[in-house]
C-alpha cells in the first residue's frame, strides 16, 4: 500500500500529515518545534527516513534539526541526543547552527556589499535558512539556501556547513537587493539528469546556474522583463519568486516571477513568458505534474500590493500545454471571501500514479488534490500560517 507524507512548515511549528495512497484520511502530527518559525522541512530522496528542518526565530536565530526516523524524533545534528555535548577536552561538538560566509583567501571571496532597498550598500549578514535541499543520492549531503543570499552545503548530515562561495562571489553580488521578504536564496534544484548541474533563485537577484557542482555560477535571466527595476532587462535584479523543473525533462524550467510566469527550454539560458490567460500573473508558487512535464500549476495572487487571490476566490490554475493556456481549478476551494496568500515554497506534488498536488495558505489551510488538481479538499484548516509544503511518497 502506498503512503504519502506531507511536511508542513508554519509560523509556529512543523506538522506532518500522513495518509495512504487514497489520500482521503489523514493523520496529523505536530506541532514539532512549537512556537518557532519553520521555514522548510524536506526529506532525502536517498533515505526517506532522513528529514531536515530549518527552525528559526527573531529571538534565538537559526537552528538546524534532523530526523532519522521519518519525523518521529528530531535532534540538532551537531549535538546528537544522548551523546556527550562536549569532547573529552571540553570543547563543544559539531556546530550545526553555524553559517559563516566564506571569505578565506584560499576558497572564499571577499565579502562585498549588496544593495539595500534604498540603493545604499549593505554588508552580507546571515539571518536564516529559507530552503533545505537534500542531495539526490546521499542522505548526509544537503544544501541550504540562506538570507542574506548564499548557498551552503553540509556533507556530514547537517553537523557543519560550508558556503559555496562561487555563487555570492561570481561578480554580480554587489547588484543583488532584497525583495519584500528579504534577500533570500529560496529555490534550489539539483538536476536529476545532469548531476553536476544546480539551479538556484534569489529574491531579488534572479536565477543562477552551476554546471560544475556549485563551484562556478552564472546568471540565467535573459528574457526576464521587470518594469519595477531601473533596467527592466538587466542581467540581475529580477524578483524571481520560485522555479520548478520536471525531473524527466530537466532542460525545461518554469518560473513564477514577481509578475509574469515564464518558461525556459534551454536550462535557463533564455526565458519566454507563458502567462497567457491567467487572471493575474503575480504569484509565488509554481510546480510541475510528477508525470506530465507540460502540466504546471500556479496560484495567481492579485498584486504585489494585495497579497490575496483575485475576487476573493482561491483558484489553482493548471496548464496542460506548458503555459499560455490555463484553466481554473476551483472544486473544493473557497470561491468567496478568501483572502489568504500562498507563499513560494508552499506547493508540492507527490509521485503516485494519479499525481497528488498540495498547497498551504497563510490562513493555515493545507489543501490536497489526489486527482492532479481536478478536485480539492483541506487536510487541515486551522494551522498557523503555512510557510512551506513538501511531500514524500512511498509507492
Amino acid at each position, binding site marked *: 500500500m502506498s503512503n504519502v507524507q506531507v511536511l508542513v512548515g508554519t509560523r509556529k511549528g512543523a506538522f506532518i500529515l500522513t495518509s495512504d495512497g487514497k489520500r482521503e484520511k489523514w493523520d496529523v502530527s505536530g506541532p514539532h518545534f512549537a*512556537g*518557532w518559525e519553520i521555514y522548510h522541512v524536506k526529506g532525502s530522496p536517498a533515505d526517506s527516513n532522513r528529514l531536515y528542518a530549518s527552525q528559526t*526565530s*527573531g*529571538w*534565538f*536565530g*537559526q*537552528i538546524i534539526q534532523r530526523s532519522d526516523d521519518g519525523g518521529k524524533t528530531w535532534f*540538532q545534528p*551537531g*549535538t546528537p*541526543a544522548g551523546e556527550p*555535548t*562536549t569532547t573529552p577536552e*571540553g*570543547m*563543544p*561538538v559539531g*556546530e550545526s*547552527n*553555524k*553559517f*559563516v560566509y566564506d571569505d578565506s583567501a584560499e576558497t572564499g571571496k571577499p565579502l562585498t556589499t549588496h544593495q539595500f532597498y534604498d540603493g545604499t550598500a549593505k554588508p552580507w549578514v*546571515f539571518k536564516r535558512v529559507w530552503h533545505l535541499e537534500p542531495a539526490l543520492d546521499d542522505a548526509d549531503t544537503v544544501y541550504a539556501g540562506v538570507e542574506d543570499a548564499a548557498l551552503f552545503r553540509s556533507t556530514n548530515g547537517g553537523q557543519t556547513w560550508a558556503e559555496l562561495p562561487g555563487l555570492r562571489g561570481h561578480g554580480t553580488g554587489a547588484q543583488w537587493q532584497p525583495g519584500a521578504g528579504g534577500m533570500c536564496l529560496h529555490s534550489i534544484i539539483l538536476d536529476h539528469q545532469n548531476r553536476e548541474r544546480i539551479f538556484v533563485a534569489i529574491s531579488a537577484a534572479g536565477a543562477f546556474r552551476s554546471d560544475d557542482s556549485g563551484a562556478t555560477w552564472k546568471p540565467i535571466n535573459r528574457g526576464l522583463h521587470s518594469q519595477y527595476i531601473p533596467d527592466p532587462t538587466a542581467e540581475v535584479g529580477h524578483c524571481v519568486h520560485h522555479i520548478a523543473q520536471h525531473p524527466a525533462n530537466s532542460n525545461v524550467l518554469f518560473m513564477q516571477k514577481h509578475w509574469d510566469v515564464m518558461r525556459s527550454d534551454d536550462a535557463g539560458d533564455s526565458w519566454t513568458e507563458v502567462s497567457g490567460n491567467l487572471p493575474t500573473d503575480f504569484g509565488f508558487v509554481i510546480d510541475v505534474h510528477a508525470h506530465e512535464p507540460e502540466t504546471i500549476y500556479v496560484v495567481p495572487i492579485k498584486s504585489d500590493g494585495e497579497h490575496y487571490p483575485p475576487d476573493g476566490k482561491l483558484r489553482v490554475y493548471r496548464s496542460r500545454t506548458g503555459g499560455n493556456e490555463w484553466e481554473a481549478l476551483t472544486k473544493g476551494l473557497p470561491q468567496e471571501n478568501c483572502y489568504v496568500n500562498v507563499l513560494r515554497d508552499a506547493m508540492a506534488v507527490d509521485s503516485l500514479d494519479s499525481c497528488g498536488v498540495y498547497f498551504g495558505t497563510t490562513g493555515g489551510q493545507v489543501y490536497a488534490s489526489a486527482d492532479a488538481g481536478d478536485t480539492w479538499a483541506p487536510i487541515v484548516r486551522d494551522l498557523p500560517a503555512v510557510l512551506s509544503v513538501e511531500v514524500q511518497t512511498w509507492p
Partner: protein
Amino acid sequence: MITVVMPAHLRTLAGVSGDVTIEVDGEVTLRSILDALETQYPMLRGTIREHVSGERRPFLRFFACGEDITHESPDAPLPQEIASGAEPFYVVGAIAGG
C-alpha cells in the same frame, strides 16, 4: 555552582525542563557564564550570542540580582550572590509582538 534561568524555547533546545546549573572557572562575569553555558549546552551556541560576532541577540537581555546588566561590560565581575548560586542569572527574552 551558578544557576541560570533561560526562556522556555532555550530550555527546550537544551533538553532541560527547568533552571540549569553550571560551573565557571575563574572570575564570574557575563562572558564567562555564557561561555560555560554554551560549553555545557552546545546546542545553544548561536542562540544567545551571534556565532561569528559574539554579539548578544537584540531581543535578549541579562539580569543579575534584579539589575539589568545587558549593557554592562561583559568582563565586569558579577555579584557574589550570582557566583555562589544564591541568586540566579537570568537570560530574558524581550516581550515583542504585541
